[in-house]
């Protein structure tokens, strides 16, 4: 009777919940949790979603497993059509994509993200990988689901990013509307501790994972944040939902996003 699910499994189900049916959804590369979440949503509550598979740009594939690299051909399995690079990017910048997943090594209260460098460019303390297409896409896509698996470190959710790679609700140069950006910006931020929304363009805590307290979140967060009046635990997925996560990602590629200590967290369903 005992059935336990890992934090990684709850996490991807929580990401999946941010996808609505009959939407166009994209994530890009380096984001196995988002990949798993997209397939999870497509096989549960969002069967008509148009999934664009990572850096393969395959439409609606049903891969047998999630590969550790997001443009491996195994991820194209079952897809009748792959977009060209330019089709996918045009679609995003003209506003035809509803949702993109975006992560950040640093994320500020406005949802700006930094994946370029820690410390000052051009010779930073840590040169990060870089932003892919996020710099333009974050300006125009319908809405963004942000995520991080590194909230607890205290170094991710910061008052100010060292470098703004992707645009949130406002930068020092102005708000999205002042900058002329049509997209809606960050809608949800899922961390390994809880879930934020952006009711006034600023992060507000909405949900906590069942084993996390508000005090822990406050301690790990580098900016002040409001707390939703209905703050509650993250809704626990069903066993079927967890089974589906495992079926989609038998290699457990999603787990590579988490520190070992987070992977030891488990929840009785």
């Amino acid at each position, binding site marked *: 009777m005992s059935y336990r699910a890992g934090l990684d499994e709850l996490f991807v189900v929580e990401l999946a919940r941010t996808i609505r049916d009959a939407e166009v959804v994209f994530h890009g590369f380096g984001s196995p949790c988002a990949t798993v979440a997209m397939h999870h949503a497509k096989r549960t509550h969002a069967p008509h979603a148009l999934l664009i598979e990572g850096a393969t740009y395959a439409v609606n594939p049903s891969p047998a497993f999630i590969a550790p690299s997001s443009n*491996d051909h195994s991820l194209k399995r079952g897809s009748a059509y792959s977009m*060209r690079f330019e089709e996918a990017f045009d679609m995003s910048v003209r506003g035809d994509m509803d949702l993109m997943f975006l992560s950040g090594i640093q994320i500020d209260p406005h949802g700006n993200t930094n994946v370029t*460098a820690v410390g000052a460019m051009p*010779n930073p303390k840590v*040169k990060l990988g870089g932003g892919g297409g996020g710099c*333009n896409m*974050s300006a125009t896509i319908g809405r963004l689901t942000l995520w991080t698996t590194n909230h607890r470190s205290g170094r991710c959710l910061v008052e100010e990013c060292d470098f*703004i790679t992707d645009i949130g609700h406002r930068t020092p140069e102005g708000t999205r509307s002042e900058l002329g950006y049509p997209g809606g910006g960050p809608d949800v931020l899922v961390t390994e501790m809880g879930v934020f929304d952006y009711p006034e363009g600023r992060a507000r805590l909405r949900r906590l994972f069942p084993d996390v307290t508000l005090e822990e979140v406050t301690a790990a967060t580098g900016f002040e944040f409001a707390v939703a009046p209905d703050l509650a635990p993250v809704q626990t997925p069903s066993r079927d939902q967890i089974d589906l996560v495992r079926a989609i990602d038998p290699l457990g*590629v999603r787990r590579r996003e988490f520190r070992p200590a987070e992977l030891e967290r488990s929840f009785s369903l």
Partner: protein
Amino acid sequence: MAVHLAPDKLGELETAVALVQPGSMVALGGGLSARLPMALVRGLIRAGIGDLHVVGSAHSIDVDLLAAAGAISVCEESYVGYEQDHGLAPAFRRAAQEGSLEARESCCDTILTQLRAAEMGLSFLPVHGVKGTDIERLHPEYSRVTCPFTGHQYVAVPPLAPDAALIHAPIGDRQGNLHIKQPYVLDERFAVASAMTIATVDRIAPTDEVAAAGIVIPYYRVAAVVESPFGAHPSSSYPGYSYDRAHLASWVAAARTHEGAQDYLDRYVTGVDEDGYRRLIGGDRLEHLTGYGASDEAWMELFR
């Protein structure tokens, strides 16, 4: 963007890489774990051709090796790394942090737009984002332009016309017609926007076979083609072979130190030619990478 009409462009790797001038702008084909022009990258390092301005979208060991060899002066890519699997690119990161290369980071869509400007022969094009981000500050060559219809102010970007595009394809013919599988990434755009394409192919095939598979890059864009089996290794070149996850892991581990990176270069690049490289990797290992198609399970096992 000149056309290349010679009927036979098949040649040796050394001759092909010698078409790349030190100090030139080089576009890297493929991306992440797929169709990286590794034989050409190794050839450039062996030939000591450096001071390169590399451009591309999301890349990994191709840029990392060139960075380790000190061959890059400017890196204008949208991402360099090994995703969540192996993380940051050690040699690239070190060079960027030390300032021995300039990380002029860009965005996939901006690079696409700049290549399109070159293709369309336009001296500028507008992009949607960038404004308000710090990416704009890394690019003093950008400007602004106001739409004559709406008054909206866009960031304007200049054309990007690389001196050479380095592209690996599974098959191509002697004239330079190339077939590749999706994702094409930016390869089609590179081939048109660049002054020339330098190609490696896993196998030279008759034109009829390449045409039946589908010519994605036509001969007149290609200045040289080299037959280089497993020329994309350790990245993939489907339908031939999958990427070599273990080899990537061993490079990333080695490259955590400057010395480790140099040892790798000595062993796998400057110490051998491509025949020697394949022998070092081993026939069994290479054969193993071609077995992805036997079953979903076989494919998955490559990544376990």
